[in-house]
Every structure is written in C-alpha cells, then in structure tokens.
C-alpha cells in the first residue's frame, strides 16, 4: 500500500487502540469501590439518618445504579462528543482541567523536548567522533549521571543550591507569571535542566553507538576523500542514518517518561501541570478525570508512534510501504 493508505490504516488502528485502552480503564474504575457512596452513608449515620437509603441515593445521583452497558454507552458518547464530564475533585469540566494541566506542563515540556532532541544526538555523535578520548568519557559520564540520578532528588538538590543558598531562582512556582517573560524562564530553568539531564542519557548512548558504526563506512571515506568538512560529514552523512533507529528511542523515551517525570518534577517544583492533575484524580478516584487523562495520553502515544513511523520512512528512503 502507498504511504497515504498506510497512514489512514494506522489512524484507524489508533482509534481502535484508544477504544480498547479506555474500555479497560473504564471497567477497572467501574469495579473499584466508590468512596463517595460510603461517605454519604457515614454522614447519614452520624446525622441520625438512614445510611442504606443515603448510599442508594448517592449511587442513583452518580448513575452507579444503572447497568454497566448503559454507563459505558453514555461514557463513549461523551468521549467522542468531547463531553468528558465534570471533575468532582477540581469542580470544573474535565476538558477544562486537562487544558489547564497541559497549559502548565507545556511550558516546561516543550523546551525539554526540543533540548533533548537537539542535545542528545549531538552529544552522542560528538562522543563517537572522539571515541575513547577524555571528551568521550566526560560526555558519557555526564549522560550516565543524568540517567542514574532520580529526577526528584536532583531537583531538590538543585533547588537547595540555586534556590535557597544562592537565591538565583524562586523556590515556589508562580502560575500567574506571564508565559513569555524572564521570570517564567527563571522559574522553569531548574525543572527543564533536571528533565533534560535525565532524558539525554539513553539518547546520547544510542546515537553514539549507532553513529560509531558509520564512521568507517565506505560513504564516509568517500566524503572525506572529496574534502567534505568533518562538521558536514558528521552532521549530514552520519547523523541521518543514525537518526533512523534513534527516532524509535526518542519517541518511546519521551512518551514513557512524560507522565512519570512530569509528576515528580511538578511535585518538587510545585507546578500545577498534567502530571499532578492525573495523579490527584487517581488518588481521589475522580473517575471522569482519570478517564479523560487516560484518553489524552493514549492519543499522545498513538499519534507519537504514528509520527515515528512517518519520520522513519522520511529519514530512510529505503523503507517502503508499497508491499504492505
């Protein structure tokens, strides 16, 4: 099939995948006990009322007394019309809660992603070009340090040094600061540094190993013989084939650590982002918001994988979808 048909097929599969994941999540939450029902019963008992009646009333108000298939059908209808319900925990629509979370998360995740994509492969190729030299060891040591140290611990340490001792950056995140401002840049500096150092390790090592394979390839010898500068030789001739397998690592790395890292960093630095929204929803059993977050991350993952596949074929013209 041509690439057009391949993309359409992949998107249809993406919809199916999201449906499966959301269904599983819905079922897991549906069978989990709901604290509001027991709270209603307890309240009624303390006030001299009928706890059983209060529990039944609470179930009726929340629609929990309806058959599972009815609740599921209502839920699916809401999902595809973007009526994702009301977040009990945050007292606002789920879509509004997710938008607010994305608004704050994007402020650090976009620079984090851009810097990771830029710095990781460059450091890896540089390390490969100076393999086994002290430059290689320093770069590798730096990459492994960032990979090994827990993000939340590193964040706290940096906060103590640069926030408390040196007072170069604020301790607490101020969400009212304008997005494009020096103050916002300062307060996001440490979270971005922590996340970048944590994510470039694996990318750097993969790019180093992959690019090392091509250094002595025939096309590189030809390039050197033709007088191509080392910079162009590495940036164009080596980097491109390196990015083919690296794109897989890049996308999977960034998706896998998106929620985990963002939650820990958001807690340490007090950023009211998507990670905290999702975590608080889970802890408080805010069903609608948990499902909304799950759907959002499902779409992110599916679209991310689709982008990865498309990038794959652009980077490597040898890959064809004609025979699929």
């Amino acid at each position: 099939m041509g690439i057009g048909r391949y993309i359409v097929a992949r998107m249809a599969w993406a919809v199916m995948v999201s449906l499966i994941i959301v269904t599983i999540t819905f079922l897991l939450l549906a069978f989990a006990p709901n604290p509001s029902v027991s709270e209603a019963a307890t309240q009624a008992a303390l006030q001299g009322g009928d706890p059983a009646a209060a529990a039944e009333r609470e179930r009726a108000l929340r629609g929990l007394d309806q058959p599972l298939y009815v609740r599921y059908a209502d839920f699916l209808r809401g999902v595809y019309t973007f009526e994702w319900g009301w977040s009990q925990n945050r007292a606002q629509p789920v879509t509004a809660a997710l938008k607010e979370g994305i608004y704050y998360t994007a402020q650090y995740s976009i620079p984090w992603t851009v810097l990771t994509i830029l710095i990781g492969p460059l450091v890896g190729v540089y390390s490969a070009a100076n393999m086994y030299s002290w430059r290689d060891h320093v770069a590798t040591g730096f990459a492994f340090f960032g990979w090994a140290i827990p993000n939340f611990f590193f964040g706290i340490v940096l906060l103590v040094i640069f926030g408390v001792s040196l007072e170069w950056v604020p301790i607490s995140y101020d969400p009212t600061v304008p997005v494009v401002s020096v103050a916002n840049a300062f307060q996001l500096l440490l979270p971005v540094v922590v996340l970048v150092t944590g994510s470039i390790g694996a990318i750097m090592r993969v790019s180093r190993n992959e690019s090392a394979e091509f250094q002595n390839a025939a096309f590189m010898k030809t390039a050197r013989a033709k007088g191509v500068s080392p910079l162009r030789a590495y940036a164009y001739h080596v980097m491109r084939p390196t990015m083919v397998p690296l794109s897989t690592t890049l996308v999977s790395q960034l998706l896998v650590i998106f929620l985990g890292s963002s939650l820990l960093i958001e807690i340490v630095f007090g950023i009211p982002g998507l990670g905290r929204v999702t975590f608080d929803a889970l802890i408080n059993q805010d069903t609608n918001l948990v499902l909304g977050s799950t759907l959002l991350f499902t779409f992110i993952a599916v679209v991310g994988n689709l982008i990865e596949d498309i990038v794959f074929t652009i980077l490597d013209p040898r890959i064809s979808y004609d025979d699929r």
Partner: protein
Amino acid sequence: MEYPIPQGLLEPYVADEDVEGLQRDEELLDLSFAGNLGAYTLTEWIRDGGTRYERNSDYYLRAVGAARDDRSLLSAAPYFETARIEIIPEQSSRVAALETGNVDNVSLPPDRGQQFINDDETMVVLEPTPYNTILSVNMRDNGWTFGPGNLFRATAFRQALAAAIDKQQLIEGILNGFGTEHVTWQPAFSEWFPGTEELTMWGVPDDGVYGAEPARDRAKDALEEIDADYRYDGDTLVGPAGNQVELELYYNAASPTQELAAEFYRQEFEANLGFTLNINAIDATPFSENYWSGSPGEGEELVETIDGQTVRWERPSPANPGPRSVTAEEAWDLSTIFGLNTYPRNPLTNESFFDGPNSAYNPVGYYPEFDAQAVFQRMREAETRAELPMLPRSCFSHSTRNSPTLCSRSARTFRATTPRFAARSPTSQTGSTSPDGTRSNRCHKPTVPTG
C-alpha cells in the same frame, strides 16, 4: 469542608433535584455568596496552583470595630491589600520558601521546628489540635490475623499494649519533643480533661506504667480471658501452635512520621511484649475503603447479645456495619492511619464513638465495658452547664481504663511566620493551614489602608 449556605441559593436546585447544577453553581464554587462576611475576596483560583485574594473594604467587622472600644483594632481591618495561598506539595520546598522569604506563613514538620524557633527572624506558633494520634486495634472478627481468638478484645491486653510503648521517647525521638502524652480521649487543655490524678498514665515512664514487666503482667492476665492457648515461652508470646505471635500494622504511606512511629511500635512490642509486628504502608483511601469501613450487615446479622443484653444495630453504616461478626473486606490488626477529633469544645459529640457498641462511628468493634450510654444520656439531659464537668470527665476516665484505642500522642501543628507581619498586625495570619501542611500563605502589605 462544611459551612452554612444561604437557603435561597440552594432552593432551586433542591426543588429540581438538580445535582449537576448545584455542583457547578459559580457562587458556590468561588464562595462569592459570602458577600462582606470575609476579610478578603477571592480574585483568582488556580486549581493546584493556589488562590489570590484582595482586601474587602466592606468587611462587616469594621462596623463592630468602629462601635466598640474593645474591638477598635477591627475598625481599619483588614490590614493587607492582598493575600495569597500557594500550593507547594513538596515539604522541603515549602520550608525552603519560608527560609528565602518567598512565603510568610507555613506549616512546619517537627524535625524543622527547633531550627526556626532558634531563628530570630521567624516566629513559631505552636497550635494545639483537637485531633489525637491513635494506634487502633481491630476487635472485629477480621482482627488478630495471627490465629484463633482475638486478644485485642481483652481490656488487660489493650492496657498491656499501652504500657509497652514509651510515649515520651516516641514524642522526643519522632516528633522532636513537639507533642504531649495522651492517655485519655480528651487533651489536657480541654475543660473536660479528667485530671491526671484519676488517670493511669499508660506508657509514661516517669509518672505511669511502662516497661516489659508491667506490660507482660497485664498480657498474662489477658491470656486467661480467652479460650485459645496463648502463652509466654520465656519472653516470647506464642500461639497455640507454639509459633511467635505475628501481627500486621498499617500506616499511611504518605506520612514519614507514621512510618517512624510504626517502626518504633515494632521495637517496643518485640522488646516488651514478645510478639513481632509486620508494618505495611498503604494509602489512606484504599485502607478506608477495604480495611476500615465495612458493608453494613442485614437482618439477623445486626443483633447481638452483649453482657446479657440484646443490642440491635438500628442504623448500620460503613463506619459501624454491625456487630463484630460484620467486617470489612480485608483483615487487619493495628493501624495508625486515622486520628480522630476529641471534640474538646463539645464533649457530647464524642457519643459518636462511645455511645454503646452500635454508636455511629465504631469501625474497630469496640464494646464499652462501662455504661457509656447512661453517661451520655445524662449529658444530654443536663439542664445547666454546671452539671456537665463531672459527667464527661467520668466518661473519659473510663476510656483510659478501657483503652479502646491506644492514644499515643496529641501532636501540635506548627505555623511559622515572619515576625514583621505579626508585630504590625496580630491578625495578619490569613488563609488556612491544613493538618498535613500542604499550604503556605503569603501576605502582601504595601500600605495600611486608612479607609
């Protein structure tokens, strides 16, 4: 949080049974219905990010201050132009924010209390709290998971447990000295506190009963009260099969203090009572749902004969689902997760806990061994305040002897603030501080308003 809401605001939703509408009413969400009742008006609410307030120049207490000489300070209240509450989840970041001056008011953990007390630039306020910290024991049928019988049901064994824990060392070592021993349901600052003369000071080495010998003596008394063959093999408490007794304790996974306390309890019980404790971290919500609360019983399940009297659970609830035979899904032995309100201002409210086996709140299956219902009935019937003091005091003396839960300590919450604000305006501490200290406050004070 509970607060009064104007009836007129609720009526349309009640009439239409419009739950969704009630949940989404803007006036209820941003408390704008409060009008001039608050010193500050909410201007911005960033979920998980905090709240912003501006001065309410129509604050109703200004009129009180203008009319009364003894309240004259209120005539120009409030004294700050703006106020801000920030959400800083990470405890070390919260304290660091106070150190750097990013915030002016914060709840402190016990291990940082002394540092700020010694700091001249910070004022630390120790606030007594009505909440106790207790070690609950499960007297229901799903308690005492080790084997046959349930030693927790024996008053003497509960006293043994209380005598085995050194409260003073716990307070010094884990709370850095910021707490008081708690041997009865009422804190010492309460008007209804029975006084130490009437109390046995369980777990207080200096003035009371503590140590391996007194603890084991009481434990041995308890062993004779139950049918199963538990005994002491030297210093080790063993069950019918000859194995050392091993129990399960659950603590809040989010609380380092509870984790330390749980470890301490394990050491004390092993040393003083000869049984081992497996400590388990668990989040409060699943513990509440699966261990603490039970599905209410039905029919004949709700009737039991206790001390020759028939007791019926008229209104079973998850907090007291029925007799001891009606249990939660999961078994457990001991727990430190929930502290309870001692209601020091209104002791009658404690009837929820003590008013008989079928009281409103009794997850642990406690059957009072004194006539608590009669005491509370007399409290309810008291016609003058003068009649009250002796009644709750007698109740709480009994609670010490019976030890339904092991009251370990009455912790204090810390609020540290920069003294410059406190010095200029004693009422400058706006905002609220939750018991887990997840909020810190900032007050902005460019000028004192003259209007």
